[in-house]
Structure formats: structure tokens, C-alpha cells
């Protein structure tokens, strides 16, 4: 039995769903960032697997750009987290809710 494309895609789907559960479930902003990292990594696995099985380099290119976007997202996001922590003293989304409707 050989490892095919669908094996990698199923692992990628499972990891993406783990990240999705994290985004839906967590209330701490730092944990939300970790969950988005999990989702981005899952997509990278799918891109690399498709690139390998179709013998095409485009998937790897997109994975590179995803990594670059994730790095810049982390840099800006952590700056915003530090500003929020200075202002509110907490990273909990329930404490940060300032708009009461």
C-alpha cells in the first residue's frame, strides 16, 4: 500500500479542522493566533502534497508566500496584542468587548 495524494489531503483536512475548532473555542487572543498558525500549516501540507503528486512547482511557490504572509501577520498581530494588553491588562475576548449592543 502506497501513500497517495488523498492520504496527505486527509491529514491536512484533519489538521485544518483542529485549527478551526481552536478558533471557535478559544477565548484568549494569543490562543486564537496559535490556532490560525495550525490552519496555515495544514494548508501548506496540502499545497506541498499536490505539488509533489502533480509534479508541479506552483504549489511550493504558494506555500512560500503563505509562510511570508504568516510571518508578517505574526509581527503585526503581536504588536497589536501588546497594545491591547497595555490598555486592558488582559487578552480575554470577553474583557475586550467594549461595544455593548
Amino acid at each position: 500500500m502506497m501513500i497517495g495524494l488523498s492520504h496527505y489531503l486527509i491529514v491536512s483536512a484533519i489538521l485544518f479542522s483542529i485549527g478551526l475548532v481552536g478558533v471557535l473555542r478559544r477565548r484568549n487572543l494569543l490562543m486564537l493566533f496559535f490556532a490560525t498558525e495550525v490552519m496555515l500549516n495544514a494548508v501548506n501540507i496540502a499545497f506541498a502534497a499536490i505539488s509533489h503528486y502533480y509534479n508541479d512547482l506552483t504549489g511550493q511557490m504558494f506555500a512560500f508566500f503563505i509562510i511570508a504572509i504568516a510571518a508578517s501577520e505574526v509581527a503585526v498581530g503581536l504588536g497589536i496584542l501588546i497594545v491591547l494588553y497595555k490598555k486592558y491588562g488582559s487578552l480575554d475576548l470577553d474583557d475586550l468587548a467594549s461595544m455593548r449592543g
Partner: protein
Amino acid sequence: MYEIVAFYLFSALTIGLFLITVMSKNILYSMTSLAAGMVLISGFFFILGADFLGVVQLVVYVGAVMALYAFAMMFFDATRDIKEKNTNNALVFLLGGLSALVLVLMFAAPIFSESVQALYPMHEGVGNAQDVGIVLFTKYLVPFEVAALMLLVAMIAGIILAGKKMDVSLTEDMGADDEIMIVKDEK
């Protein structure tokens, strides 16, 4: 044979580590398991023959991004457990499970892939890094430069956002400040 063993080992370990990342109450455990999971994902890339992507994953994700998170942890109190009130856990797991099922069904469905052909095919006898370099610096040169500009903008934004009021202590403990003042007075 080795590929099969490595694939199942890496996938089981990655799923377990990322589950710890998502479920853990402690930020430190969560961050450590995320870093370990990213190392194992670079293992996936090495199995798939994307050597350069694996190295970039190790350098950028495990090296830079996790170091950035570790530096940010100095601002937050990492030893304290996170208290969260989860109002509707069953709904979240139902939605997550359903989306997992839908994604697996979509990916496992037979894809009409006969007409798909490689736009930039890999060359025989050329290393992966050379191949990636040729495509990246010819066909994807403009997105590459735009990505570089975006990283520069993100770096400046991060410095400006994090550098405001750097002299004010975040985990300020009034008692500790008083003690320092007292010690200074005694001298």
C-alpha cells in the same frame, strides 16, 4: 516502506501535538507543542521532496515566528492558567466535526484530474532548491518583491506598535516598585 512509516508517525504526532496546542490551558505548553508540531510538518515537506520548503519552514516558522511568540510571552504572564468560560462547547465540537467530515469527503472524492497538467514542471536531475530558485526569480519575481515589501511594512508596524510606552511595566506590581524605592532610599 520508510515513507509509509514516516508518514503515519508524523501525522499521528502532528495531530496529537496540535490537539495539545488547541486544548491546553497553559500558554507555555501550547506554544511548545506548536513549535514541535511545526518541526514535524517540515518532516512532511522532506518526505514530499520539497527540500527547500522544509528548510524555510524550519528557519521561518520554528526559528523566527516561534521566537517572536517567545519574546511576546515576556510581556504577558505566561505562568498563569487561562480561565475561559466556554458557553457552548457541544456546538463548537459539532461544527468542527462536521467541517472535518465535509473536508475529508471533498478531498477523498474522485477528482477529475486527467486534464490537469503541470504549469511549471520539475526538472529531472536538478535539485529542488535550484528548481525553486529558477521559478521564483522568473515567473514569480513580482510577487516575491511584493512579499519582501510586505515584510518590511510589517516589521515597521510591529516595531511602532510594540515600542509605544516601552518604559511602562506591563505586569506591573505596585508592591515590587515600592520595595525598589525603599531599597534606594536606604542607600
